[in-house]
């Protein structure tokens, strides 16, 4: 399943649909980095509002995406984790350690704008 990625100025917004298979996640990891390179983006927002489950593989892949994108000098932020999903994750000990998170798309854009405005 292809994850739609939109360009918003210097940022990319990837909106995850409901259920991602492991292959989808691996594909997303490669696709995001390629897009960052192609668009010379400064920041990436991955919106997981529609994800109703976050297992350890998804969490690890998202962390890897953030690390790979940082190597390109760009910032990643995960937004839209639902309360139920967050609760389940912490109970299972699945953390998104080292990854910036925000409530939703608006907050994510705010974060990235502030980060790059102040350093401009």
């Amino acid at each position, binding site marked *: 399943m292809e994850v739609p990625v939109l360009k918003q100025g210097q940022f990319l917004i990837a909106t995850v649909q409901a259920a991602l298979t492991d292959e989808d996640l691996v594909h997303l990891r490669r696709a995001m980095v390629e897009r960052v390179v192609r668009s010379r983006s400064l920041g990436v927002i991955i919106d997981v509002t529609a994800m109703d489950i976050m297992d350890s593989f998804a969490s690890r892949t998202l962390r890897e995406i953030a690390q790979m994108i940082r190597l390109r000098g760009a910032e990643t932020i995960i937004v839209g984790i639902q*309360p139920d999903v967050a*609760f389940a994750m912490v109970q299972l000990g699945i953390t998104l350690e080292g990854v910036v*998170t925000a409530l939703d798309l608006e907050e994510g854009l705010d974060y990235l704008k502030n980060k790059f405005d102040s350093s401009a």
Partner: protein
Amino acid sequence: MAKEMAGMERSTTWQETLVHDASLEGTAVLLRELVAHLRQNRTQLREEWAKRITEAKLLTAMSKEEIFAEATAVYDQYVEALQTGTFEALQAYARSLSERIIPRGVETHEVVGIVLLLRDVLARSLFAKYQADFTKLDRILDAYEPAANRIANTVAVGFVQERERVIRQQQEAIRELSTPVLQVRERLLILPIIGVIDPQRARQLTEQLLRGIRTNRAKVVVIDITGVAAMDATVANHLVQTVEASRLLGATVIVTGLSPEIAQTLVTIGVDLGKMNTVGDLQGGIEQAERLLGYKVVPAGAAS
């Protein structure tokens, strides 16, 4: 000879059957007679019962008129149950009666007491009526006692079940009350916790907080545990999980008001304190939260 013997056996068996049928039919007939008696003497039996209730100092929370009104309804339901042999109507009545009288402070022993008093009053009136014919009295009581006991049981159980339902409801209300999620500034929530936290309450707390973060779009949450005396390892871990889950929703958590005992517990069980942002008291916590949100609080009329 054999034929005569067989004939005799047959007639004995037939007689037994006749007696058996008669006693079954007899029970039904007796019950009808019993119910008729109770209906005919309704007024004085009910008064006798109300008098006994007052003498036994039961239902003191209710006025004489109320007692009489409820007594009338109970009496009629009682006789109805005796007549029909079905108890659904009585169960429904017992529940609705309980709903009415529990808020008035009526206790279980009072409800059981008055139903047993009614049973006694009716039994006495049967003794009085059938005292001349002991065999008949015996059979009338055979019909009356099981039914009367089942009625007492039904009413008492109905009352207790209603009480338990009320208690559960109140417990739920207390739980909801004790963990309000309060918005004190734009994007700033406070969660003041008071009392004992058990794992169930901790879980409920977390769910309420996470929903509150999403609804209020909070960026900072101050969890104040000044009102919590002690915390075991399980609950301490729940607290850490709450902090982590809040972060996943983009909110920073500040924990304030840790008592010396709780501070000791957290250190002893080796909670990763790097994951927890703590400040001494609630005031300090709110001040830090305001700083994080970019607020600056200055006295009005300060240097302009």
